[in-house]
């Protein structure tokens, strides 16, 4: 028998469905909003509704874009080199690469990675549109920037296999020691690759 009104109960349950939020956090958030000025819950509610209705996927690179906009700002920008495509797992990876301010090509978001054990195959990702983009002929280089994990490697290998007959250059982000890391804790895989990819100093 619920002691609290449905409105309180419903919001608590809604919060609980979010990742990382348990029943305690959910009710704390609910009671905070209950006591806070109406303005806060109103703007939160509006922002939540807009999240779905005002966004869509870019029809070229599948990054998240504003609703009704066919092509995202990066794909539409003449300043970005359309001959280079950087392939990433998630839209958040695009943000990370953009923050470097050192990449001037375009992107392709796969929305996931291949995972043999979880049963995620090539058809579950945006791989086919990527292959078509490359076939269109303007692309010179495909940079595979999937995560350095077993699944990320499998995805990169699969795309490489599919593009093997095309003339484009296929590269993978370098793997090595992170800034501020400690050799003592490096695993063999990382160290071996860091050794293989060592670079001449002072050139």
């Amino acid at each position: 028998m619920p002691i609290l009104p449905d409105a309180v109960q419903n919001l608590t349950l809604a919060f609980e469905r979010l990742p990382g939020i348990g029943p305690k956090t959910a009710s704390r958030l609910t009671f905070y909003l209950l006591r806070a000025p109406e303005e806060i819950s109103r703007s939160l509610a509006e922002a939540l509704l807009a999240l779905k209705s005002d966004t869509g996927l870019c029809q070229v690179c599948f990054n998240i874009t504003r609703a009704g906009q066919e092509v995202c700002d990066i794909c539409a920008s003449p300043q970005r080199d359309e001959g280079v495509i950087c392939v990433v797992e998630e839209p958040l990876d695009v943000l990370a690469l953009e923050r470097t301010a050192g990449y001037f090509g375009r992107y392709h978001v796969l929305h996931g990675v291949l995972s043999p054990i979880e049963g995620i195959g090539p058809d579950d990702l945006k791989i086919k549109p990527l292959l078509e983009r490359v076939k269109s002929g303007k692309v010179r280089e495909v940079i595979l920037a999937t995560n350095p994990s077993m699944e990320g490697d499998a995805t990169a290998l699969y795309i490489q296999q599919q593009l093997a007959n095309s003339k484009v250059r296929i590269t993978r982000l370098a793997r090595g020691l992170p800034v501020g890391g400690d050799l003592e804790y490096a695993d063999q895989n990382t160290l071996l690759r860091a050794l293989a990819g060592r670079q001449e100093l002072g050139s």
Partner: protein
Amino acid sequence: MPSSERTLRVEAIVLRHNDWGEADRLLTLYTREEGKLRAIAKGVRRLRSRKAGHLEPFTRVKLMLARGRDLWIVTQAETLAAYLSLRDDLERIAHASYVVELLDRFTYEEGGNRALFDLLAVTLQRLNEGHPSFTVLRYYELRLLDLLGFRPELFRCVGCGEEIQPVDQFFSPLLGGVLCPRCGGQDTSARPVSVNALRFLRHFQRSSYAEAGRAVIPLPVQQEMETRMQDYLTYYLERGLNTPGFLRAVRRRNPD
């Protein structure tokens, strides 16, 4: 969580990892000492994690675990064998995933099985060294079934108990083995199995790995053996496996 210790030192093979919370991963491990365990690896999705590189799937690793509230937490990790070449070829990734998925699906968190751990380790090592995948995988399937108590009967008819004669027979996952032509004809769940496929399955079941590896098996017979084993395994798992489909998808689309 078995064992009442606060900390646990184990040798483990990482079966799978799933993202967990902000930057953590939930690992499914098969340990030499305690069998299957699940443990949280904190912060391993951060680039500067000291543990991440040691905790990828298929890695054999020495671990220190601490008792958390509901799950073990990984405090230290050191690679014993990285099986690196399992990761740089798509088919090998698929084969290793198959090995791991089978073990994961057939076991529970139920205590240690040293022989099973050793089988897993040696199978991954064989794949890593580039042994022919057919021999490695069929041998693994039959040994795994032995160790788990699902050994198929390949020498006597599971219907009438008569010794199997060297002619084409039937194979019934439901009854757990071969049926002679007389019994098999009446059983609708049974599939035909050729005298050759049966001969090599029996050879794999009672021979050492080295002996099994010396057998020269024609391709159609290999395919038949694989199909019969798949039937048998999926019957006992009560649900299809993910990795065989993945392997087919990857093979089919080889653009050559």
